């Protein structure tokens, strides 16, 4: 009961003041290492693709995935939803903020901002609330998926949703020249 209300509270907290940060992703700079080119990251991140249950982001050579997402402005990250199949979905996920161009070799060089262990519920769509204080000033996010639920060779991710809010920064693209009258 209490857990249910807590979950409800968490869900409502999301609805209240957090937005889906999809609009603030700088798509030109998104990189994904070890993805299977037939199942690339837009399947999990982009608007139409991620809703499709059949389209997954899949790993290639082994089960690890490294996704680098830069944002167009500074954001605060509140929670994250990672959906995937029950056995091949991710299990241990590490998040790093503001580190550019990470490789698999330097994931252990510095501690992650947060480490998540996803349960099957999370894989159904239950958001994971993050340590908010650690995600106050995020310019870019690196998601390192270390292993999956069943330990298989391929990790599949169906959807990734980021919830948060923006800091008051200027979006340079939105700046328009004031016409003299």
């Amino acid at each position, binding site marked *: 009961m209490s857990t249910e209300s807590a979950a409800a509270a968490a869900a409502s907290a999301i609805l209240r003041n957090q937005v889906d940060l999809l609009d603030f992703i700088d798509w030109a700079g998104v990189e994904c*290492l070890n993805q299977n080119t037939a199942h690339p990251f837009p399947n999990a991140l982009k608007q139409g693709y991620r809703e499709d249950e059949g389209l997954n982001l899949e790993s290639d*050579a*082994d089960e690890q995935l490294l996704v680098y997402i830069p944002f167009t402005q500074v954001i605060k990250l509140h929670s994250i939803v990672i959906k995937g199949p029950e056995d091949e979905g991710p299990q241990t996920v590490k998040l790093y903020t503001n580190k550019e161009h990470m490789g*698999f070799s330097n994931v252990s060089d510095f501690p992650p901002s947060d480490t998540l262990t996803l349960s099957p519920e999370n894989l159904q769509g239950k958001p994971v609330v993050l340590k908010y204080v650690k995600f106050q000033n995020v310019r870019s996010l690196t998601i390192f998926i270390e292993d999956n639920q069943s330990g298989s060779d391929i990790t599949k991710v169906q959807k990734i949703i980021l919830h948060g809010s923006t800091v008051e920064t200027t979006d340079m693209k939105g700046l328009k020249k004031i016409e003299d009258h």
Partner: protein
Amino acid sequence: MVLEATMICIDNSEWMRNGDYSPTRFQAQADAVNLICGAKTQSNPENTVGILTMAGKGVRVLVTPTSDLGKILACMHGLEIGGEMNLAAGIQVAQLALKHRQNKKQQQRIIVFAGGPVNYDKKVLEMIGKKLKKNSVALDVVNFGEEDESKTEKLEALVAAVNNSDSSHIVHVPAGSNALSDVLLSTHIFTGDGEGGSGFAAAAAAAAAGGVSGFDFGVDPNLDPELALALRVSMEEERARQEAAAKKAADESTSQDATMSENVGTSASEAENKKDDLMDDENALLQQALAMSMDEPAATVTTRDTDMADAAVDDQDLALALQYSMQDGAKDQSEDMGKLLADQSFVSSILTSLPGVDPNDPSVKDLLASMQNQPSESEQKKDDDKAPKEDDK
């Protein structure tokens, strides 16, 4: 034009002393490396290339990825042959060098020249291949030198493990009369993935084959644009002159037309003399003169006046030539012409500037005298006399 950082792994083991590739395996390899560096840097100016050696005392990076072609070629000198090729270490060091490239936007590529035998297990090589694929590094292998069943198999397995949507390739070059670099020119290593270095490769192939350059005047517009332009313009002028001469041959009915063409020919030769100075202006005016004299015998006064003004600005010779060319339609306007011709000083100055015409020549003097008396008739006579003089030139 893919933006790429490339590390080339050179085999400088003892097996490279062999002469089955002329002159030696090592030299053939060096030539191929030079060609690859050139192709990469030319296909995209921001491409970088680095070199490392796999044998000798150990794996050694000679130059980190740079776009400075001179530096790359310089480091190929003074390389010593010796030791045994360490393929696994070479590839891993190359991967590390690429990881620390300056421009992170570049795609990563390793090119391995595998001449000596390969001592590693197939499993180990496959693991290395997987690691390369995971870090999205492409791999090209040139299998030459030692011919060995297991070596071929291992290298094939390595490339298969790395290969991600046909970005990695393996090329087998058997010993023979063909140079290593020639064989490589036609492979993916040079042609990129269909585009990019193909222009360079095509040019290199043409040069290698010893064929014609294929350009219009034997001069590459890229190498020497001014020379190519000058050649093209003079060709066009020659063509224009020949057209005028052809017109002259065709129109033998009226002597006026003959005179016209002759004068046009004169003006053309004058124009050529000043080619380096006022090429475009001359051409434009010449075209105008041609058009006016050929197409419209009855030239309008306004056009003529404009022409006069322009021509007067440029030089007197051309003005005179234009006047002659407008003669055909402006027979009634020959008064002006007569006036100009009557101005002896003006005419003599013209004549002195014309090559081959000596004003002290008696025939010329006669001309001048007769000219003053009878402007219209003498024009023709003068022109006829002038014509042979021009021919004498």
